[in-house]
């Protein structure tokens, strides 16, 4: 009877559970992070798709292969409708504010020819990389022409140099950096007057030992037909609030597809020791095509291989992953650009001509907030949030490290060791161990020392007691 009724209860519970609909906000992709051992670990979803907009819905007619997206400091969305050669500006509610189709360039009416890059300064100036026209165009907020900047002119640039600017950024000082198509010398840098000042931040030359071997044994004719070892070009760039420039490279072989360049062009990106920011750890590696810097050293990179947005913190640790290739809301066909504003991430799809907005979930906002506190050194406040994060995701290693570091600062060395071990942070574990060891020895040194001395003394006495009679015996033997 008892068994029957318990089975009945079990069945009814199971039925109830299976009848429950899936949560309304179920995402079309899975949330995951990578563990210390390099395995993908399921994780709650940090951002959920909330809405999407196409050109038709915005009332501007369909967007034709839009190439870039920019969210200004006020939250206005600038869409670069490359195929139609125009810029569409949307406000926060996604009403079309204005459409910039062309502009008055001196006497003649001018327009863009397949522009690929767009940047809006804090002052509202719009910079467009007008790719096929081989120039940069600067407009003011209303779309009035300000100036155009042509190809870089200098002795170092050869006669055959073809200038196709693809992406453009402007730093606080007004310096302009351009990613050019097929330009492997680095970013093309202009000063605020539009004068070419040089290249910066070249990628290192990558080569295969195998290729090198074949190159060394082949003849001159064969060598000439082989691929040359040249550094790879950048494909996108962004600038953070401190004026550091982030760049991405599409190369699938490199372990540093993301770079953070200081003003002299040296890569200063902090890399996580275990897993560098390279996206998915699969055989077919991720190819980054856009980067978005959000502040506090957090940056997001858009992967075109699987249509995912990877968010990393300033230590190069993966925070969360969103998005996927697909045909549902929240998945993409051919993602082209990623931007974020406050609690939302925007991804522009080139083929569908669509922007998808993702808004942060409870988990995502806790991770964001905890990471902000953590990176600004407020470990104790961060620890509280990390504990909340752990309630939602007990596999989140960064949370363990965060709590561990906080405990370490509070002097709870033993407990800090437990958490740091769970978070797989050997360096801080070892620090905690050192502190704990010292504390332990301070408390127990006298006890252990007394013990050791007692044992030694005891052993000595016993040896003496055992040996003495035998010695006397021997002496007697010798005498007799």
């Amino acid at each position, binding site marked *: 009877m008892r068994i029957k009724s318990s089975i009945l209860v079990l069945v009814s519970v199971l039925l109830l559970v299976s009848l429950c609909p899936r949560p309304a906000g179920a995402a079309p992709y899975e949330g995951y992070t990578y563990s210390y051992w390099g395995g993908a670990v399921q994780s709650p979803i940090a951002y959920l798709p909330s809405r999407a907009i196409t050109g038709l819905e915005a009332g501007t007619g369909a967007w034709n292969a839009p190439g870039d997206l920019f969210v200004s400091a006020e939250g206005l969305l600038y869409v670069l409708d490359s195929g139609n050669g125009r810029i569409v500006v949307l406000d926060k509610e996604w009403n079309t504010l204005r459409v910039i189709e062309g502009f008055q360039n001196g006497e003649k009416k001018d327009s863009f020819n397949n522009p690929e890059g767009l940047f809006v300064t804090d002052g509202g100036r719009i910079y467009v990389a007008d790719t096929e026209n081989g120039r940069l165009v600067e407009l003011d907020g209303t779309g009035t022409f300000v100036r155009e900047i042509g190809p870089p002119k200098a002795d170092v640039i050869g006669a055959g140099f073809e200038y196709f600017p693809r992406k453009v950024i402007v730093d606080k000082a007004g310096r302009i950096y351009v990613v050019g198509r097929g330009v492997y010398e680095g970013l093309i840098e202009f000063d605020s007057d539009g004068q070419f000042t040089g290249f910066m931040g070249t990628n290192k030359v990558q080569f295969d030992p195998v290729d090198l071997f074949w190159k060394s044994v082949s003849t001159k004719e064969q060598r000439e037909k082989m691929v040359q070892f040249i550094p790879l070009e950048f494909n996108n760039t962004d600038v953070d609030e401190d004026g550091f420039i982030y760049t991405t490279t599409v190369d699938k072989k490199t372990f540093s597809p993301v770079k953070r360049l200081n003003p002299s062009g040296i890569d200063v990106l902090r890399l996580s020791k275990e897993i560098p920011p390279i996206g998915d750890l699969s055989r077919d590696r991720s190819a980054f095509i856009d980067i978005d810097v959000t502040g506090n050293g957090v940056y997001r990179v858009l992967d075109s291989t699987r249509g995912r947005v990877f968010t990393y913190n300033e230590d190069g640790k993966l925070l969360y992953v969103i998005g996927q290739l697909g045909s549902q809301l929240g998945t993409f066909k051919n993602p082209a650009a990623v931007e974020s504003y406050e609690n939302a991430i925007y991804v522009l799809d080139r083929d569908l001509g669509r922007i998808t907005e993702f808004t942060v979930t409870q988990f995502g906002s806790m991770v964001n907030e905890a990471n902000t506190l953590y990176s600004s050194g407020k470990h104790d406040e961060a620890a509280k949030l990390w504990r909340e994060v752990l309630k939602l995701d007990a596999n989140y290693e960064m949370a363990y490290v965060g709590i561990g570091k906080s405990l370490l600062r509070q002097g709870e060395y033993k407990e800090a060791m437990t958490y740091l071990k769970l978070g797989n942070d*050997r360096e801080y574990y070892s620090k905690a161990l050192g502190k704990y060891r010292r504390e332990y020895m301070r408390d127990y040194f006298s006890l252990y020392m007394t013990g050791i001395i007692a044992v030694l003394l005891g052993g000595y006495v016993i040896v003496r007691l055992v040996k003495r009679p035998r010695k006397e015996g021997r002496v007697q033997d010798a005498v007799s």
Partner: protein
Amino acid sequence: MPFLKDIKYSLHVAMHPFDGFWDLKYENKGKLRMALGILMALTLTMIVKRQYVGYVVNYNHPLALNSINELKYIIFPFLLWCLANWSLTTLMDGEGKFSEIVITTGYTLLPLILINIPNILLSNVITLREASFYHLLDALATLWFVWLLFIGTMTVHQYTVLKTITTMLLTLAVVGIIIFLGLLFFNLIQQIVSFVYTVYQELSLRG
């Protein structure tokens, strides 16, 4: 107590290899059971080491630990070494018998146990900065083992220094050949089995 005496003798070999290995060969002091005992103890030590070595120097994925692996990494190489060494030295005028080779090789493993056990204990109280001590001790254990193996081979086969070194290097090559032949053998067996099975299947389906 003969057992204690055996242990005392194996320690003597580790400390005074020239003397020890000589006695091993010509005074028949080496015991096969002792050599195999040392091998077993080493296997046990290595299992313990993989699992319980201090976290700061332990880079093993806990889910990837498997004691069967020690067969692959310790017992199997041990047997292969003995076999290869014996096959080689019979052709190269070595004086050692197979049992002598096994006993000698077994006794040379002792330093690995002697150093590893305190090293495991030590590793649990060291920090990352002191980890080099752990690695130093680890390296010392290996060097000591190689040194004993060298002396052992030299004494058992009554070789000169140069010939011993050559023999040891050649032994490694022979180990490689044995592994190759083994793989080839198993591969062929597999092919034959699958062939026979296909024939059987063919016949049974027709019948």
